[in-house]
C-alpha cells in the first residue's frame, strides 16, 4: 500500500469485482446456456416433429439449492410472442439437490420431461434415477398420433397432446436458479467434457443429421464443435463437447 496508484487501482478493481458479483446475485439471469439451435421462421414449409441426441454425462457438476444443471434436446415454437412466451417440449437429465452439490454421489441426478405451451399447459415428469457418471444415453422427443412423446434409451418418460406449432430444435446445457445461477456448474470440466453426439432432427418429413446450429454461450459455459459434421458416416463421431470454464 506504499504505492498510492497501486492501492487505488487495487481497490477499484476489488470494488468492481464486488459490485459485479453483487449485481449478478441480485439481478442476474435465471436461466443461462451453452449450446446451439436451429429455428424456422414459420410453418409454411413444415414443422419440427422429432429431435434426438446422445448425451455423455461426465462427472457430476456442483449444484446448490435452489439451482439445477441440465442437458437436453428440445422442440420449440415461435419466439414472435416474446422470448419468455416460447412454448417447448424437452427431455433430458438434471442434477438438482436439496443442499450444496450432492448429498451422496449421484443424489439428485435424474431424467426429466417437460412440456410448456406458456398458456397454462405446463407438465413435468421426473424419474428417481438418472445417468451414471461417464455414461452416454439417447434422448428423444417426437410426435406420434396427436401427442408429443419423450424417451430415454427408448424407455418412455412422458406424453402430452401437441398443441403448439413446432418450429425449432435446441441442444443445450443449462443452469437454472432464481438466486445466483452461477453458483451451479455446467456439466463437464476442462479435462472431462460432456458430449452431445448423433444430433439430428426431423423437419417436414426429412431427417437432418448433425444439422447446422447457431451456437452460443454465456461465457462461463464452453463448447467445441471441431468434430461436428453432417458428412461423417458414423454420426456417433460427430459431436459437440461442453464444459464449465471454471472447472
Amino acid at each position, binding site marked *: 500500500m506504499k504505492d498510492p496508484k497501486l492501492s487505488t487501482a487495487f481497490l477499484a478493481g476489488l470494488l468492481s469485482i464486488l459490485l459485479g458479483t453483487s449485481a449478478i446475485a441480485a439481478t442476474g*439471469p*435465471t*436461466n443461462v*446456456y451453452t*449450446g446451439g*439451435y436451429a429455428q424456422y421462421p414459420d410453418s409454411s414449409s413444415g414443422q419440427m416433429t422429432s429431435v434426438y441426441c446422445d448425451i455423455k454425462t461426465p462427472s457430476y457438476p456442483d449444484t446448490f*439449492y*435452489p439451482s*439445477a444443471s*441440465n442437458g*437436453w434436446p*428440445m422442440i*420449440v415454437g415461435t*419466439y414472435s410472442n416474446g*422470448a*419468455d412466451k*416460447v412454448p*417447448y417440449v*424437452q427431455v*433430458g437429465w*438434471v442434477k*438438482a*439437490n*436439496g*443442499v450444496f452439490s450432492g*448429498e451422496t454421489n449421484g*443424489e*439428485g441426478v435424474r*431424467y*426429466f420431461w*417437460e412440456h*410448456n405451451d*406458456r398458456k397454462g*399447459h*405446463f*407438465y*413435468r*415428469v*421426473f*424419474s*428417481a*434415477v438418472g445417468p451414471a457418471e461417464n455414461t452416454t444415453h439417447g434422448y428423444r422427443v417426437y410426435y406420434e398420433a396427436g401427442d408429443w*412423446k419423450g424417451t*430415454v434409451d427408448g*424407455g*418412455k*418418460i*412422458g*406424453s*402430452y*397432446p401437441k398443441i403448439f406449432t413446432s418450429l*425449432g430444435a*435446441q441442444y*443445450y446445457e*443449462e443452469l*437454472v*436458479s*432464481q438466486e445466483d445461477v452461477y453458483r451451479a456448474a455446467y456439466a463437464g470440466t476442462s479435462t472431462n467434457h460432456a458430449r452431445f453426439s448423433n444430433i439430428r432432427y426431423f423437419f417436414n418429413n426429412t431427417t437432418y443429421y448433425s444439422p447446422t446450429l447457431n451456437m*452460443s454461450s454465456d461465457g462461463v459455459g464452453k463448447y467445441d464443435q471441431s468434430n461436428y459434421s453432417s458428412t461423417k458416416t458414423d454420426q456417433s463421431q460427430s459431436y459437440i463437447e461442453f464444459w464449465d470454464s471454471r472447472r
Partner: protein
Amino acid sequence: MKKTSLFIAVASVALFGGALLINNSSNNLNTASAQVENVKTQHDLEKLKFAKTKLDVPTKPAIIDEKTAIENAKKAFSYFTKDAKEVTVEYHLMTNPEFELFSEEALAKNPKLKEKKHMDQLPVYIVSFKGLSQLTSAPAGSKGDMITENNIVVDAETGVALMGFSYR
C-alpha cells in the same frame, strides 16, 4: 279387542312403511356409496388425463403408512420437496403407460410393476409438496416459469419413491 286390532294394524303399517323408508334410504346410501367410489382428489384430473395418467379408487388398504410415504418422498427427491409450506397425501390406484424409467429397486420390490413395466392400477401415494417457488427449464434466450407444487409418487406396497410430476 277392536282397539287392539286397530293398534296392531297401525303398527304393522308403520313398521312396513318404516321398512320401506329404510330400504329407500339404503338405496340412497348405495347410490351415495357409488358416488364415493369415484376418485376424490385435489388433483386436476383433466391435466393428468392429458399426460395419460389415470387415478382409480383402491380396493384394499395401503400396506405402508402415509408418514413413511412422506419420509421416503423427501429422501428420494430432496430438491423437489425442500421448503414446502404444506404437504398433502392421497392414496389411489395409478395407471400411466407413458412412464417406464423406474429404479432397479422399485422393480425388484414389486413383481407386478416389473411385469407390466409401467403403473397399471398400481396402489400409490401421491405426496404433494406445496407452497414452493422453483424455476423451470426454458428455451435458450428465454426464462423459466415459477412452479409451486411438486408431486412424488410412492409405491404404497413397497414404500419406494417411483417418480414425480408437476403441473402447477
